[in-house]
């Protein structure tokens, strides 16, 4: 069942994919598409993926430690946990942003009202100035 790359077919494919992922993340940060604060977690994930693809023994070790007989399951478990944590983090970020947008919207409404009142007063002053001339 050896493929194009010989006995280590899967490891090589996994490694290349992990590298692509890492490259994609770093490119996004370099182009400032992702803020640095949110990028660290992805770099961290990319590094874990690369390590696991180079050294699948690590996965076996971790599996034995947790007590999982089938190592690929450990991989999906770790990934799902990480994704869940990241999603919770996103909920926190979204909530904060919603709060800020709310505050800004309110501020905008209050300022617009103040502005229109000031404008009315200026218009009135202009009128009296004109009529006095």
């Amino acid at each position: 069942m050896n493929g194009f790359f010989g006995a280590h077919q899967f490891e090589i494919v996994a490694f290349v994919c992990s590298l692509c992922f890492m490259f994609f993340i770093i490119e996004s940060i370099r182009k400032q598409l992702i803020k640095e604060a949110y990028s660290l977690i992805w770099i961290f994930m990319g590094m874990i993926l690369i390590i696991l693809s180079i050294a699948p023994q690590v996965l076996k070790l971790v599996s034995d430690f947790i007590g999982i007989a089938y190592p690929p399951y450990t991989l999906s478990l770790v990934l799902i946990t990480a994704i869940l944590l990241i999603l919770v983090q996103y909920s926190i970020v979204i909530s904060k942003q919603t709060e800020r947008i709310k505050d800004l919207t309110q501020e905008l409404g209050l300022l617009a009202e103040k502005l229109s009142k000031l404008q009315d007063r200026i218009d009135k002053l202009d009128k009296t100035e004109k009529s006095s001339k």
Partner: protein
Amino acid sequence: MPYPVQFGVDLHGIRIILIVLQFNIQEDFDMSAKAAVLVPCFNEEVNIPSVVATLKKHVPEMDIIIINDCSTDHTAAVAAAAGVKTVLDLPCNLGIGGAVQTGLKYAHRNGYELAIKFDGDGQHKAENIAKLLAPIEANEADVVIGSRFCAKHNGFKSTFFRRLGIRLFFLVNSALIRQMITDNTSGFRAYNRRALSFLAKRYPSFDYPEPEEVILLGKNQFRIKEVFTEMNPRLGGVSSISPIKSVYYMIKVMFAICMVAMRPAVKQEKR
């Protein structure tokens, strides 16, 4: 040593003058207490003219503040045409909580001593505002809720689910703040300066903030009082709570209430 004694007497004299001054300021404050009627509106162009008319009739001395929560109809223009001087137009729809908070912020910044929350759909009666303000003016409460239920005879009819929900809020909220609050969903409320300043900062930004607000205030040692007020059936337009959504709404609000109850009281400056 006559000198120090004289000094002391002088000081005493100043103190007496100060006390008298303070007393006068207190009197002045009550005479000219600035009051704002906050009317949050979302697509209320049908109801707004009559709401403004009743407010002008019954509380002509109060400033009407319309908060237009990004309506898609002509609410703001209709309000201005009805003679409302202050219309706060929000550029994005924030929901009732965010709209009310905008009004409270306005009242706080412009030095209002009293704020009344009044629905834009015409279900509250302007002639009851005086009734609502009485406990605040007598310094018996910081917040007064216009309740449909705290008197024996009330003409309020509602759907079964709605009554069930109101009953549930009554039980939960009363238990949580150890005070009978019969009408937690009523939006007809009056606030004194202390309460409106507090809420301007931390009004629950939520679709249905009223029950949560009760807990928040109770937890932070605000004196809440209920006054019986009759309410009108809606004049027109559609209520914001459809029966299908009401179960979801109940769960959401209950959860929010429990969360507020679990949080510690907010640190405030002393009265």
